[in-house]
């Protein structure tokens, strides 16, 4: 967990509790190396962005499925289910 500004805290989307709100800061790619970007993380990040999970977007976590399952989020007026692995790569800032 990183302290960025005084009033906010950066967390992974998967760490938010049901009912908590956050603003997306970034989506962490699988591999940072530019050459490999197309092969590995491209699709995954692109898909999330196409579904409206872009930096600056507000998200509300509604609930998470048991056994390390997906989480349900409310974003841009609609309800999405996102796998846990993906949620772990989405960084959000949360008001303290």
């Amino acid at each position, binding site marked *: 967990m990183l302290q960025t500004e005084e009033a906010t805290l950066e967390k992974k989307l998967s760490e938010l509790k049901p009912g908590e709100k956050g603003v997306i800061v970034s989506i962490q790619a699988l591999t940072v190396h530019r050459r490999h970007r*197309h092969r590995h993380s491209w699709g995954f990040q692109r898909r999330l*962005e196409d579904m409206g999970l872009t930096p600056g977007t507000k998200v509300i976590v509604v609930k998470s499925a048991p*056994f390390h399952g997906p989480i349900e989020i409310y974003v*841009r*007026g609609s309800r999405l289910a996102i796998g846990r692995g993906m949620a772990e790569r989405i960084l959000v800032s949360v008001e303290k």
Partner: protein
Amino acid sequence: MSLAGNANVGKSVIFNHLTGLHQHIGNWPGKTVEKAEGTLHFKGHTIDVIDLPGIYSLSTFSIEELISREYIAVENPDLVINVVDASVLERNLFFTLQLMELETPIVVALNQMDMAKKKGIRIDHEKLEKILGVPVVPTVATSRAGIYELMQTSVDVVEKGVGKPTKIRYGEEVETRIQKLSEMVSKLQLPYPARWAAIKLLEEDEHIEGRIRQLDLKIVSAAREFAEEIERIHGHSCSTVITSERYEIAGRIAREVQQIVRLRKVPMRERLHALTTHKILGYPVMVAVILSVFFAIFSFGDYTSQLLGTLFENFYSIYESVFGTGILATLIWGGIIEGLVAGITIALPYLIPFYLVLYFLEDSGYLSRIAFLMDSLMHKIGLHGKAFILMMLGYGCNVPACLGCRIMETERERFLATFVVTLVPCAATSVIILGLVGAYVGFQWALLLYVVDLLVIFVLGRIAFKVLRGEPTGLIMEMHDYRMPHLKTVVKQAWFRLKEFVIMAFPLIIAGSFIIKLVDVLGLLEPIADVLSPVTVVWLGLPTITGITLIFGVIRKELTLLMLSTLFGTTNFASVAGFGPVQMIVFTLVAMLYIPCISTIAALAKEQGWKRAFFVTFFEIAFAIFLGGIAYRILMLTGM
């Protein structure tokens, strides 16, 4: 003209209204993506309508998106009707904006206005029309409201044309670079609009980059440079910035045209959603729903197939009295007609209700909740929640389940899902499990076989997941609000799936029955059974004739049971010597796992190619025999 829009916005309902019965469902050339075409007759006009796949974006992430994009950009339809879910306006407008960038004439069908109203959303469609610069027609497809207006507007647009849609302007840094690039691109001979191609270049779209690289390498490197500049300014990759700004615009428009009233009480569909995705209660609800669905379908199927069976038996006595029992007559009856009958008695009683219920559940929104609940378990075998729905489909029939594996995102996952699905006992296999083990050994043993099957799926799936290397795709899926399914569309969906099954499976079932009957008439069955006896008798401990029935099972699994009663000369299996409980269990276990039937093999080959289809087939035969032999020895040890 064509229909485009997100998934689950009522696109197919509108398509049905527009085209009525003049429909044809096929595949896009060379692709396994469905293509629905139809004809609209309206006031003397005859218009071809194509229903494009439901997608969220026009990038090239999935085949569906690429197909839709190429179709709109290259084939240049006279008009694209963009079906928009009014209750999720922002997300849907994101797609509309991309369509507008492709510069085709658009009419927006603002659908599910009733749903929006129920959610307390009021939309000023005239204002939306003004902002977008394209005609907007409010519709409620399920009750046909607004469909006539939609047709009228569409015809008007095609005939008279409309004013240019509003140009979507991005932020300053992006916009200036788009303009510079599009000037460069406009000198090339491309089937796409220059501005759109410029945007795609900045988004580092591989497909467009590849095409332009062949024409002018400098443009691609200029685009790369621009993209890096934007990345430096914003701190995010250029495609992220563009997507983000596009969503911002969509959000701004949505906020401008809609008014949201807070609802006073929690509506029923929200409570239903909370219950069906509840971390504890969700599971018993799911099990109850699935079990009652299967129970209902099996009771109905059993009853109807017996009814049909009696009917055909009566028909046979008439046939026999007319044509006699000569070799040719037997061949035609046993080969062709029985094959046909076999197809009908499985398709009608089991598949029709199964498809109906399944599409009903899908359209209502429940299947996506099941995918949500089962996601973590499916991840253990390298798949995500949606694959569980395919497995459910497999319990009805493996053929549509194999074809359905197209919904998985990557090639690797499609193969993994197809493999897993062929291990699921279909309705025909359940007939053996329940009819033999369930009836003569005990219900708990039948249940045990289902559990063994699930274990096999889990273990083999896990091994396959480890063998086929690669990062599993995570689940990302919209869970749209619960709604009452549109019955006509459900029936139509079921009908098309049934047609697909009949076209694919019936010729194979008939040809297969014919060949086996021919072998029988030539007196070759018993020699073949003798050849197989080292496996059937020595390793599996079964009577010799079971070898014959297992061959018949290739056509349809439940034939193994039907053949068994013919060859034993009785339907009371308990009275047969040398075929006790142990043999029954081993026989059923082998029949359950040993091969995907001939129709499934064909479906596998269609989706995955013959090489993989044969691999899966031979692997499963070997595995079933291996497991059967082990089960035989264990069961003998327990002294049953």
